[in-house]
């Protein structure tokens, strides 16, 4: 027994030493080797939708939609989102009338009609948000060769690797806002290039960018760029600051909703399911105890 304990201790120590040696070797290599992007890790933002009781703030999503509509949508499409989705109760919660009026402001390509002609007609709630460019090539051509990605899923399709052991802790803290944190950091992270840094033509310096230190997208937001509809009424109590920081928070929340429109239902259902399973498990535990009570095992 003694010998066994000693040996397993030895084995564990060997494994620990082994792991330490090669992780140290790797760390040394990282310093000398090529730069790893992003240069700066994303900020942690306190989102309304994080955690087990996460929720969307409809007013924030409405503001976020306004930012998308007035700024992002001039280059970025959102192919998977329909106008009717904007009425979603656990989303932006626009009224049916608002959605109808909003859709009607757009001209949607449709057809062929009865005569066989392609037509343009006013949008209806069932239409998807129209894309700014006819196709991918046109979008790339108008943007210096860099195709502005569709934003429908962008909040879930981006994320900076968390690494060990952080990703293990993430299971317990329920951290899953890597996408939103990344986009927020990117939008607010533009800087002047450090001295001596040559930027390629039409590129911008952003240390939060995941695929290099230069990004084709110019800084999209500036303070006071958008006059929030919410700030236009008599009531000044609900006014929100019109800053890059606030615009970014709002548009990223909107993008998260667009990527995961059933997030709130999912989390609230999850709570019920977990409570049910805990109660069920304890009932089964006592059942099992009773069944085995007179059976040594």
């Amino acid at each position, binding site marked *: 027994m003694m010998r066994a304990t000693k040996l397993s201790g030895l084995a564990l120590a060997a*494994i620990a030493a082994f792991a330490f040696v090669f992780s140290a*070797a790797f760390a040394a290599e990282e310093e000398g080797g090529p730069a790893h992007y992003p240069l700066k890790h994303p900020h942690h933002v306190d989102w309304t939708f994080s955690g087990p009781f996460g929720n969307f703030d409809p007013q924030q999503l409405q503001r976020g939609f306004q930012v998308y509509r007035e700024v992002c949508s001039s280059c970025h499409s959102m192919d998977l989102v329909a106008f009717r989705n904007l009425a979603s109760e656990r989303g932006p919660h626009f009224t049916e009338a608002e959605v109808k009026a909003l859709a009607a402001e757009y001209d949607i390509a449709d057809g062929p009609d009865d005569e066989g002609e392609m037509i343009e007609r006013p949008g209806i709630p069932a239409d998807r948000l129209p894309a700014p460019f006819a196709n991918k090539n046109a979008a790339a051509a108008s943007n210096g060769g860099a195709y502005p990605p569709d934003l429908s899923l962008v909040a*879930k399709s981006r994320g900076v690797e968390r690494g060990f052991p952080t990703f293990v802790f993430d299971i317990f803290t329920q951290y899953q806002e890597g996408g939103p944190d990344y986009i927020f950091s990117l939008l607010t992270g533009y800087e002047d290039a450090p001295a001596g840094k040559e930027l390629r033509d039409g590129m911008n310096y952003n240390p939060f960018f995941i695929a290099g230190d230069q990004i084709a997208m110019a800084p999209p937001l500036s303070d006071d760029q958008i006059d929030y509809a919410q700030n236009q009424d008599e009531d000044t109590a609900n006014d929100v600051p019109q800053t890059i920081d606030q615009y970014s928070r709002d548009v990223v929340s909107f993008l998260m909703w667009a*990527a995961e429109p059933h997030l709130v239902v999912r989390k609230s259902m999850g709570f019920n399911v977990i409570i049910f399973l805990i109660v069920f498990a304890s009932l089964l535990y006592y059942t099992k105890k009773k*069944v085995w009570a007179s059976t040594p*095992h």
Partner: protein
Amino acid sequence: MSADGHSSYNPSTGIERWVDRRLPLPRLLYDSFVAYPVPRNLNYWYTFGGILTVMLVSQILTGIVLAMHYTAHADMAFDSVEHIMRDVNFGWLLRYMHAVGASMFFVAVYVHIFRGLYYGSYKEPRELLWILGVIIYLLMMATGFMGYVLPWGQMSFWGATVITNLFSAIPLIGESVVTWLWGGFSVDNPTLNRFYSLHYLLSFMIFGVVILHVWALHMTGQSNPTGVEVKNKRETVPFTPHATAKDSFALVCFLLLFAYFVFYQPNFLGHPDNYKQADPLVTPSHIVPEWYYLPFYAILRAIPSKLGGVIAMFGSIGVLFIVPWLDTSKVRSAVYRPLYKQFFWILVAVCILLGWLGAKPAEGGYVIAARICTFWYFFHFLILLPILGLYETPKPRPASIADAVLGGADGEDGGAAAKPAGATAAPQTRG
């Protein structure tokens, strides 16, 4: 089908007697899941077989409904998955259950496999039972791989490209095999279509082999933590209610873990790149398979030659088929094998380390570490297992389950005094 060979089913109603004379299905079920005797000393590690069965059924049910809404076409697959996520009632729940369910299926199967390795469950007379299990595991890997391709995201596409390209390492016919697998000259619509068809088919093949697996289990009876065979009826308890109650409790605990991920972390086990539609013109900066393949991916990349890597990767599963004959020890359970027990835990650590290395870029220290771990993996099975059995001095084992569980009090009537029978109860000196 009970281990002692005769049925204790007693049809009590006229209808049951009528059916029993024509198709003894109720008898089969009764003998298999009610009267079936299980060793009384099974611990919670033995509940994962039941958990796996439930997970398989869950995968099949959610999969069938998902298939009703999914479109297997390169141009439409990605959007159809998003249609499920957005517009199908509770489609998000079905899809997350299916995707997270695959991960949980593998969590459970890894526990199940390592439990088998720890308690020596593969040893005579359970070799076929073990081999059927390895076949199920292989089928699961194929099914999981093809299922991951179906959403047609970036990782789907590039994962499929990398893995199917492995076959090009086969000498002479490699390139032709890859073209044949693809149904063209790159991963494209024909590939997606056949993967969909096979993904659907393989799940039912798994179901079929599971039936054989359970059948083989019921022939030999379950192994148990002492590794000493059941000697008389007093050492067993009927499956229902004993195992049923215990398995149900374990199952619901496992479902808690499952639900936690489905509802709170559904994308934790996936890769963000798979929310980008497949684009043959843009290669992701590094391509990683699903987490449950990472140890094998690490082995693949640890070997400098492509063919060598492929052989090592398939060999790492292939070696499991012959484990019953590689292990020369007559003692089943690691509880009584002080050396094997330690090497078992080292193997677990090595496999986890390989998994971590599989997710890292194949460069520098990572490659060296992956090579050391790969060496150790094969060393464990091919060298250590045979040698340990010959040189290890096992600890004294109880003469019977009754002896181990019921103590001296019951020793007289069939416990310690009884003459050990069969290979596993050989004299307690070195094997």
